């Protein structure tokens, strides 16, 4: 579904992505992990076309990411932190995105219930807590039932209950043959959910495989330990 071939990106003198080649399949939850500044966010932004790679090629559903924008109707993206317009309410935001994507039918009722958002629908964003904003963020990406979900730290700021609900929902979506790509640094969560882990270190793919394989390879009891061991090895 998503094919990344030898992608490189520098920000000034800092090399963020250093030749990345991966293929991400549908019906799987793929997690991108790595230490801070390993290039997780940059990688995800490249996938949606927010960051233009210096070289290499990215194809999503067969479309060249940087040639066109129509393919993005396949994608739902949850950025790490969004600064919503302060004076609009979630209901207005949902309506706005429906209009923008030209999908008037997607009312997202299921997600609003799942994330327990009803009470906040008509309050301006500036009055909402960080957690509620994150729920709005997730709802905005998911309500259009996209083929590919790209989520940057989706559980940050969520209460444990909502966090659990979100995981169940993601598993359901996987069962519906969706492509789900997460960036996260909560490794326990990743271990629980992921079919596949891509470990980025200094802009390279250091490990790519099932969590189980990482544990076997390093001989550690948990994925978290395994990742830590790989980090030590790598640096």
């Amino acid at each position, binding site marked *: 579904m998503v094919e990344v071939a030898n992608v490189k990106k520098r920000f000034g003198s800092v090399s963020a992505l250093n030749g990345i080649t991966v293929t991400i399949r549908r019906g799987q939850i793929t997690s991108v992990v790595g230490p801070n500044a390993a290039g997780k966010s940059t990688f995800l932004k490249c996938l949606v076309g*927010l960051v*233009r790679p210096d070289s290499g090629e990215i194809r999503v559903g067969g479309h060249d990411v940087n040639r066109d924008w*129509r393919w*993005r109707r396949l994608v739902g993206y949850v950025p790490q932190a969004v*600064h919503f*317009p302060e*004076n609009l309410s979630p209901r207005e935001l949902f309506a*706005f995105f429906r209009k*923008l994507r030209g999908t008037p039918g997607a009312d997202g009722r299921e997600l609003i219930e799942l994330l327990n958002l009803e009470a906040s629908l008509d309050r301006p964003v500036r009055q909402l807590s960080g957690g509620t904003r994150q729920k709005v963020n997730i709802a*905005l990406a998911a309500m259009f039932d996209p083929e590919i979900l790209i989520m940057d730290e989706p559980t940050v700021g969520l209460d444990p209950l909502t966090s659990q609900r979100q995981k169940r929902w993601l598993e359901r979506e996987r069962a519906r043959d969706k492509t789900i790509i997460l960036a996260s640094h909560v490794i326990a969560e990743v271990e629980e959910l992921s079919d596949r882990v891509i470990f980025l270190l200094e802009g390279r793919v250091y490990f790519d495989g099932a969590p189980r394989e990482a544990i076997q390879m390093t001989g550690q009891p948990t994925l978290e330990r395994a990742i830590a061991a790989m980090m030590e090895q790598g640096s």
Partner: protein
Amino acid sequence: MRQIATLARYSALELARSWWTACYCLFFMVLAFAFFAFGEEPAQAVVSVLNVVLLVVPFVSIVMGVLSFYTAREFAELLLAQPVGRLTVFFGQYMGTAASLALAFAIGLGIPFVWYGWNAREQSGTLVALLFGGILLTFIFVALAFALAVRTENRLKALGAAIFLWLFFALVYDGLILAVIVAFSSFPLEKVLLGLIILNPLDLARILILLRLDVAALMGYTGALFRQFFGSPLGIVAASACLTVWMALAVAVGASTYVRRDF
């Protein structure tokens, strides 16, 4: 096009609910009412309003333009991940910001103008020109703000540059004109001055409105020449072309960077 309109509407809606926009609108309303109520002559009031408009509209437009660009920047990450083109997002945000500021300005001045316009019907053409000029300046200076903000990662740096740009157009440029006049006073400078004035949207707007007012009589030979030029088809075309080019240039610079940059 539909997407630009949607984006512009929401970005305008956001600004319209902002406290600052309301203040801006109210400011002009109070100002104009005060000048018309306490000034003895409608023409005098128009001149006083003109002075404030020429200072405040570009300043607020460029500062609010920069600020609203940065405020919308993180949100723009989400917008750009939607099935819309980058140009669409850029134009949508630009149109929304400029239109809502222009609207706040137009409502703020428009209500007192309509109110007092009945008593000063001979000034109504000038009032319309003043409104129109203010709106054009808003669009130009928001475009300049976006062009600056797109290219500058640091919000404070962009704000500083914006204020400098405003100072340049509002004050420094006229200082340079004066320097030219003093340095070349023995030459017939009218045509050069005409060119210099037309290049600065603030000067152009000021002169166009002054020429409609009776203070134009104080402008002597130079004023007569300006009046003749701006009354001719060539002058009208040149003036509107210059204003449009400023806006188009700033929008183009902003848009071209916006399309290439990373978020």
